[in-house]
């Protein structure tokens, strides 16, 4: 089936199978920041934003994405820099495989949480697994970005 997808404010034509995940289609179109980690919606490295809200693209049929605005970390542009900086300043990036999805989810969290607290941040990010860092450094940086002590 043929689709027209709005990715990072540009339109892309894609010829896909009906059962293809948004993850596979995005990677096929060259958006390599979207990673594949589990295919069961449990690790979070495939997170992208659909109309500003984080979703797991491995669990989202590409066909359902037509008519929505898809954002990958490439599409955040300068808005990603502030998040990247706080994580880098803590030395919290390790293997980096979970990194782009974490940046995206953090960006969405900032838009969504009006009165962020440590507990709310931890809940929001519970779907973004990281095996390297123990989350500690990531959260130190992200709490600063969210204005939470």
């Amino acid at each position, binding site marked *: 089936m043929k689709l027209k997808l709005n990715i990072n404010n540009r339109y892309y034509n894609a010829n896909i199978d009906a059962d293809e995940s948004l993850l596979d289609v995005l990677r096929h179109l060259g958006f390599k920041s979207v990673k594949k*980690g589990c295919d069961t919606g449990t690790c979070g490295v495939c997170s992208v934003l659909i109309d500003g809200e984080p979703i797991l693209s491995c669990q989202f049929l590409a066909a359902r994405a037509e008519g929505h605005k898809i954002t990958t970390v490439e599409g955040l542009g300068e808005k990603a820099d502030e998040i990247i900086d706080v994580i880098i300043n*803590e030395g919290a990036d390790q293997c980096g495989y979970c990194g782009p999805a974490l940046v995206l989810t953090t960006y969405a969290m900032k838009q969504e949480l009006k009165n962020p607290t440590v507990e709310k941040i931890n809940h929001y990010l519970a779907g973004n697994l990281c095996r390297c*860092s123990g989350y500690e*450094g990531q959260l130190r940086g992200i709490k600063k970005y969210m204005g939470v002590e």
Partner: protein
Amino acid sequence: MKCVRKFDARPKLDGSWKFLDDYSYPEMIHGQLLYSKCHHGYIKKINFPPNYDLSEFTIVSPKDIPGENIVPEPVCDQPFMVDKEVMHYGQVIMGIAHPDRKLLLKFIKETKIEYEELPAITGIKECLENEDNHFGKEITIDHSINKEPEADWKYHHNVYYTQHQEQAYLEPQGVISIYDPKANNMFVRITAQCPFFVKSGVEAIMGNAVDEVIIETSEGIGGAFGGKEDFPSLFAGISSLLSYKCGKPVKIVLERTDDIQITTKRHPSRIELETWTDPVTNKIMRCRIDYRLDAGAYQTLSPVVLARGILHSISGYSVPDTVIRGRLFKSNTPSNGAFRGFGAPQAFAAMEAHIDRIAAEMNIDPYKFRKINLFKIGDEFPTTQKVLEENLSDCLERVIQKSDYHNKVKEFAEWNKTHKDKKGIGIAVAYHGGGYTGNGEKILNSEIKVVIEKDAMVKIFVSNTDMGQGAHTTLAQMFFEAIGHPREKCKIQLPNTSKTPNSGPTVASRTIYIIGNLLRKLAFQLKDEFGFDNLEEYVNTHQEEFPQEFHKNFTPDPSVIFDENTFVGIAYKDYSWAACVNEIYFHADIYKIELKKSWNVFDVGKVVNHKIATGQAEGGILQGLAYGASEFFYKPGFGRMHGFTDYALPTTLDLPEMDIEFIHTDSEMAKGLGEIPTNFPAPSVRNAFHNATGIFIDEYPLIPERLLKALEE
């Protein structure tokens, strides 16, 4: 102690850093592994599904192997693919490739294999309790005294069990093999910790069919923790065979389920401890340790894990009369392999738990009991190696002070009297020998290369990989800080076996300790030999001398002598030390342990990059805490473990408040750090649960089902 930013941090976060699945080559097709769903048996028939054009597929089995069907490892007993007898669930039977990955996965799923099933060992106790099931060489460390125990010495005897732990790197294992018929060589790009191990693996399977094998890692390796140490050799062998047969580049990226079901894990263990303690001095006078590991179906590198395990099994205690026996046992699950700690986490899980048991039964505080028995200068390890420092004791003192341990013990005991839920606090200590065991570093003879260009750019060539631990940043930092050169002018070559010398594998907490210190020595040597204060100025004024290449090999300390038959001598020249205190909250209604606070003090010598070191410690500690408290692998039903829904990793909701401190950082020597954080958290959680409830749990992890059972009993 500087905090140089990692050079790869930004591209990793903005998504531009290339991981294996991000690489593509012209005409590349996809490969996958067809593996056994039977634990033990003979293959009667393989039924490929109808309605597929088999001519479109490339299929390799042992008959296609031009070289040998044996993976080169410390013990060469594992075939690349099943020869006759299936020995474990997840054993590779064939490699299959096709241009369409989706169709390939469907084809493999629909392929049915008929087996003649044989009896199989799949349970941990079934494997480790049966003396007849032992295989491979037994190791004994004999530091015994020919003297019977005194009649009044208190005897304690207990058995401790640990189970599998999955490395769970977030990037599944992947490889691309490219056979070039014109050059008759094989280029392999792979997610691997040890490029030269992979080279040996591909050379073994290809035999004389290719003239050269070149291994290069992908730019990014999405975590490894030991899991990408030995399996890549097998994996790359099969992808290379596929590429050789079809003449096209072949990429295999494992599905998560396959990665969990066929790759190596942490060895389950059964550790039996017998101790005799003098009730007057509270000194442990005698100890007998029976350390058993479930190696899986083949030995592969398990003897090396066993060696490190028994060398750490006395923990940090000086016991005059000690005998340690180490053995491997066989089961019909995949060969177990390297995982951060390499046999030591099992050792500390047992001994640090046992120490609390003795202390409780002798009615002495676990801290005081540890202090009495900890290594003192002049004491001996069971190998007769002399203890030269009391830094472990310093770590313990500091962590007790920081955590306000003594007051909390009293406070929690009081609180627990009136609450159904319970609070607990537990201690553990650990150490980790840096580098290969015994004479290993001498045999490895690691080499580094540095090239200084005409524009004073420095390029460092080592085969050690960066799988997220920040090794390349830290290695470069050690060189440029020592030589006094700007960071921007130092680069590290991506590990490639045709360009980088063999500086050994990225394992055994050796990258900074051996290779980093070697780079530092080379930097000082160049400064001395050329007599410069400023490298850039020197290069500018001596243009005719550059580019120039410099090599340096590791020089072993001649005083380090270790007998690998008797296990007598210096097992590791330098040790890192650590101690922790963990606080837990036990939710009595749901039988759940909540990790509250984790205090950790390390002596890893000189800390090269504080932020990278802290990140290593924090990540390793959470892996260790989860090993003790939550990560459960259902071994008898190996095929039931499909992914992170079955094997639950800690999330941001499971974190304790964590405190990390490094002491004795004024040392000149940067020691190993990669593994020690995972060695000790598990027993401290177990000890904290005992402190909270008065109940000992001797089987890890402390999952709610196990706690419920213990409380009912």
